């Protein structure tokens, strides 16, 4: 599903964010990306949805080399990849429903389709009852779930979350991670960059550790039995 082949990234002023990263993620896998600040986690995730291109090496998504993707094809790649950020990135002047529907509207979906799928996505994150609320009327957790609903409303094959729990308290963060995890159980490949050690420990799944742009550890914890049953042990904690 996702493959990094010897990927390096050098930003301006010779800042090396990634150095020779080799990495594969299969369909339906749930992967944590951890590491100290500045290790290159965000850089790595941004490469998946082609916000950045590698300076060296190649990134493949569903077998396509992203560096060779025409600019006009990038929007279509992104419709297959949901993205969630630490700061939610909701539009303040739109309701929960409109924020989620937005991702479908801009793809030219028909209005009954927009309605159906938006309702479904809100159902999935438990926000049906709050669909008329504006972001400022929502708790942090609800805002992040709205943003999660927006990320999955296109039924993406891949979900990328960059510190999705960074602005949430531990309990809410855990709950959100549970939602992410449920989504991976439905067959979506999920990549989560996080600092939340305790959550990573609880959800015992594949953890990729980056340090100064290199993968220093890539292991599958006890209880990891392959993609579809990923993290099964951690759920009840």
């Amino acid at each position, binding site marked *: 599903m996702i493959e990094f082949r010897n990927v390096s990234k050098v930003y301006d002023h010779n800042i090396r964010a990634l150095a020779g990263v080799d990495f594969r993620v299969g369909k339906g896998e749930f992967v944590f990306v951890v590491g100290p600040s500045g290790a290159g986690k965000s850089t790595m995730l941004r490469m998946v*949805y082609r916000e950045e291109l590698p300076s060296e090496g190649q990134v493949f998504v569903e077998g396509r080399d992203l560096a060779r993707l025409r600019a*006009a094809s990038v*929007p*279509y*790649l*992104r*419709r*297959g990849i949901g*993205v969630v950020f630490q700061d939610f*990135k909701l*539009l303040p*002047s739109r309701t929960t429903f409109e924020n989620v529907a*937005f*991702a479908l*509207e*801009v*793809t*030219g*979906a*028909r*209005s009954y389709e927009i309605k159906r799928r938006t309702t479904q996505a809100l159902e999935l994150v438990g926000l049906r009852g709050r669909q008329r609320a504006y972001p400022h009327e929502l708790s942090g957790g609800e805002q992040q779930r709205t943003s999660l609903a*927006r990320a999955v409303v*296109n039924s993406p094959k891949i979900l990328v979350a960059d510190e999705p729990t960074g602005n949430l308290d531990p309990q809410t963060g855990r709950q959100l991670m549970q939602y992410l995890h449920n989504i991976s159980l439905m067959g979506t490949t999920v990549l989560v960059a996080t600092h939340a050690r305790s959550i990573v420990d609880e959800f015992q799944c594949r953890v990729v550790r980056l340090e100064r742009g290199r993968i220093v550890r890539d292991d599958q914890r006890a209880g990891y039995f392959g993609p579809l049953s990923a993290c099964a042990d951690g759920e009840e904690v």
Partner: protein
Amino acid sequence: MSLFGYCLREARKSIGRNPFLSIATVFTAAIALLVLATFLLGAANLQNLAEFVERQVNVAIFLRDGVAPADRDSLKANVAGIAGVEEITFVSRETALQRLRDKFGENAALLDGIDEFNPLRDSLEVRVGSAAAVDLVAEAVKASPLVDEISYGKELVARLVSVTRALRLGILGLAGLLGLATLFLIQNSIRLSVFARREEISIMRLVGATDSVIRWPLVFEGIVLAAGGALVATLAVGVVYQWLWQAMGRNLAFLPVLPLAAVLGRVGGVVVLTGVVIGAAGALLAMRRWLRV
């Protein structure tokens, strides 16, 4: 189709979200287009005036004494063949005297006894359709031995022609400048709109909106703002023109001023079209800088 609806809706929302900026843009566009509209109206009237004056222009070809009717007729035929000549009539010296008499009206008695030695000459009166034809006629008959003298308002016509040409050029130049100013204003407004929506646009990119979905609402917005300005300008200029026209009709009835109905359609059309083009161009220019699309 639903995308088109989306773009329209977004443009409308974006205008509504920032009503002050939108109104300000509409009015600045209106002011620039107002000047354009004023000058277009002026140009239409000037054109009309020039045509009117040209229509008044006649050339009188005075013949020498004793020209044979046959020679006269061949000269007449020659002149009639010149482009721009609309009508040519022979006025005998007797007719000319009669006209003079008519002009004198009740004082015609003063002319009694003049018949014996009528001082007037036979002439060909030429009515021309344009000032340019005057010169052609003059050139053609100047050298003829039959012709005694040619009389026409050469000076007036020439001056009018050059003045109209200069004014038209000036108007075109000024309209161009104002168009550029409007373009700049619209560009700025759309740029602000892009800036105000940068968050939204970055999310659109993230969720897979194509460039055209990002671009079209902004283009629509530019068009709507500029066309709105154009409508305001047309309306304002129409009201003022109508008022002036009525005032002129009372006081300067001899001047041929076009009625509003005759010009508003054309001027309004040009102004709105200019607005649409400028609005779209301004939006596209603004985005070239900001969106790198």
